[in-house]
């Protein structure tokens, strides 16, 4: 899905040169769920922008979705962003003056696809906001806004989602709900790359990349054992709370699952998301590939 070789990015600040990326090599397979961590200035955002075709490397080769994007022009990059990549930002970046529905519609404006409205409706249904489509961002909670942003990211059915601190502006509980959606998207086979500095978010990925001074200094696969290890090392209260939760969940069975009815599943478990008694689907270490989703059986995806 992603291939980067000897990726360098330099910024000129007056006379000095800042090496935001100092020769990064990276391969991400289709269907992977990868987290990138690192301190401010470690180059994680720069890497994400370059992988997301928003920025160009000073040197090096980038291949995204089978295309060598470092060789493409602006117009071709725009097409790749539009068709293959979905962005999710820390601050949601919704257009405040329009409704949730119109926000989700924005990528489709540039796709000029037929049935755009249906696609936008489906995407909103999918993040559980089918009933809130006429609301403006100012009328919604942070979690709802981020779900609208995710709906916008997936409306063109991209193969790659790039999330830059997606839970950074949300409380823990809402952040978990958002991560849950990512897990579900991942289960659908979408490659997910999350940039974060929250350890409990990072460990939910299958693979953790840690960056420092423009280099990848750690790149490890995360299994349950490793996850436990990392969480044990973590000391902050926030992370401990998560660990307890994760432990509690581990004993719950993967209940309330119904088979997927083809295409997009329609929901992530209903309106506000606060009635989800058991987040049993949270299986962050599960292998990529189609997976059942816990959406309520009464929602008929064909009808809408």
């Amino acid at each position, binding site marked *: 899905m992603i291939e980067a070789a000897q990726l360098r990015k330099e910024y000129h600040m007056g006379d000095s040169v800042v090496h935001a990326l100092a020769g990064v090599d990276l391969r991400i397979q289709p269907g992977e769920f990868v987290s990138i961590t690192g301190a401010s200035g470690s180059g994680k955002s720069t890497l994400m*922008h370059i992988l*997301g075709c*928003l*920025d160009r490397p000073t040197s090096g080769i980038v291949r995204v979705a089978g295309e060598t994007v470092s060789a493409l022009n*602006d*117009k071709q990059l*725009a*097409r790749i*962003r*539009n*068709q293959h990549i979905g*962005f999710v*930002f820390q601050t949601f*970046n*919704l*257009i405040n*003056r*329009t409704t949730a529905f*119109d926000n989700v519609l*924005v*990528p489709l*404006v*540039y*796709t*000029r696809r037929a049935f755009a409205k249906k696609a936008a409706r489906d995407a909103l249904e999918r993040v559980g906001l089918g009933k809130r489509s006429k609301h403006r961002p100012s009328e919604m909670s942070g979690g709802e806004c981020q779900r609208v942003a995710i709906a*916008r*990211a997936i409306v*063109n059915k991209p193969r790659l989602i790039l999330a830059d601190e997606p839970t950074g502006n949300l409380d823990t509980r809402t952040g978990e709900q958002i991560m849950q959606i990512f897990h579900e998207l991942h289960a659908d086979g979408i490659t997910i790359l999350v940039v974060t500095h929250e350890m409990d978010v990072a460990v939910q990925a299958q693979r953790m990349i840690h960056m420092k001074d423009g280099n990848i200094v750690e790149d490890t696969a995360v299994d349950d054992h490793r996850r436990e290890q990392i969480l044990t090392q973590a000391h902050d209260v926030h992370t401990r709370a998560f660990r307890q939760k994760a432990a509690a969940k581990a004993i719950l069975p993967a209940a309330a699952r119904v088979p997927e009815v083809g295409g997009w599943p329609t929901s992530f478990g209903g309106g506000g998301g606060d009635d989800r008694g058991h987040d049993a689907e949270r299986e962050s270490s599960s292998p990529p590939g189609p997976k059942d989703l816990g959406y309520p059986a009464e929602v008929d995806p064909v009808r809408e």
Partner: protein
Amino acid sequence: MFHLQILLMAFRGLKQNLVRSLLATLGVIIGVGAVVSAVSILEGAQRNILDRFESLGADQVLIFNGSDRKSHRQVQTSSLLPKDSDLIAEENKDIIVAAAPQYSGAGQVKFYEKNAFATILGATESYAPMYQYKVAQGRFLTREDVRGNAMVAVLGYKVANEIFGALPSVGKTVKINGKSFILIGVMEEKGAYGFIELDSQVIIPLSTAMGRMFGQRYLNMLVVQCTSAARVPACIERVKKTLRASHQISAGDDDDFIVFTQDQFKQQLGQVALIFGVVLYSIAGISIIVGAIGIMNIMLVSVTERTREIGVRIAVGARRFDILKQFLAEASIISMFGGALGIVFGWAISNLLSELTQVLETYTPPIIIALALLMAIMVGIVSGIYPAIRASRLDPVQALRYE
């Protein structure tokens, strides 16, 4: 080029800041309104004046007192005598049909308690035929009236109406500037001749006017009717020759009279219109520029304000050209909307002016509506292009971080 989605987006963008958008529109409304009203006033005035000159007749030559050349020698300011008229007609029968000498002054016409102010025109029997000016009741002046200094008068349509209304007037005696005149006729309604309102005149024999009425030696004006418009230049030469001889002007000295034709009036009018045009169009042009700057200003603010939005749009796949189009569309909507309202506004203003002043006639040529719309679109594009380019060149990474 602009598909519906982008236009809709542009509309929403404008609606969001309705007051600001309307203020930007106001600039265009005033600018386009100024242009439309300037054109209407100028066009109306020109048409009005041209119409008046058309009434002069292309085959007529007008002769006035005075000199149109800069001369070192003193030239007598008044020179045209009644006999000059006879001489011109007599000596140039082959080329000149008639000559109509005129003297006019202001006067008051009184019939018992009714009275009216009018132009008292001293004329000869050749006056009415020259203008195809017909008598509605009674008769016009005759050669005998003129020769005999008769105390007779012919009323213009308006004067007759004012004093007598529907009552018969021919044969009645009226007082003109205190002197008694017998009314011999009433003229038909005729309107304007050049700048003279024929219907407000009272016509009396030239000899009476110059003698008993005003006590003058010299004519105001002498109108010469040539056999055809084509022969006007030849006609002028002959008139000059006759007059120079009559006035005993030696070779090399300047004329002591001025000859005018319809063509010359038109040329002079053209120059006056040009000056007025330059002034009016400059004002209109400046308002358009101010309007354009207003739009540009608003658009620049809008681009800065929506930096993040632009970043998002680029991130989700907008091409730079799409961003450019969106902002250009916004500027164009402002300017086209403003242009349309401006046309209505300008048209209303010019009509109001003509209504209020009663003398200013305005005319809004249909073509100007198309031109004004075109101009509005141009304003939109010109003022929108720079902000739009700025928006489209934003670095998405920077734009997404913009606070």
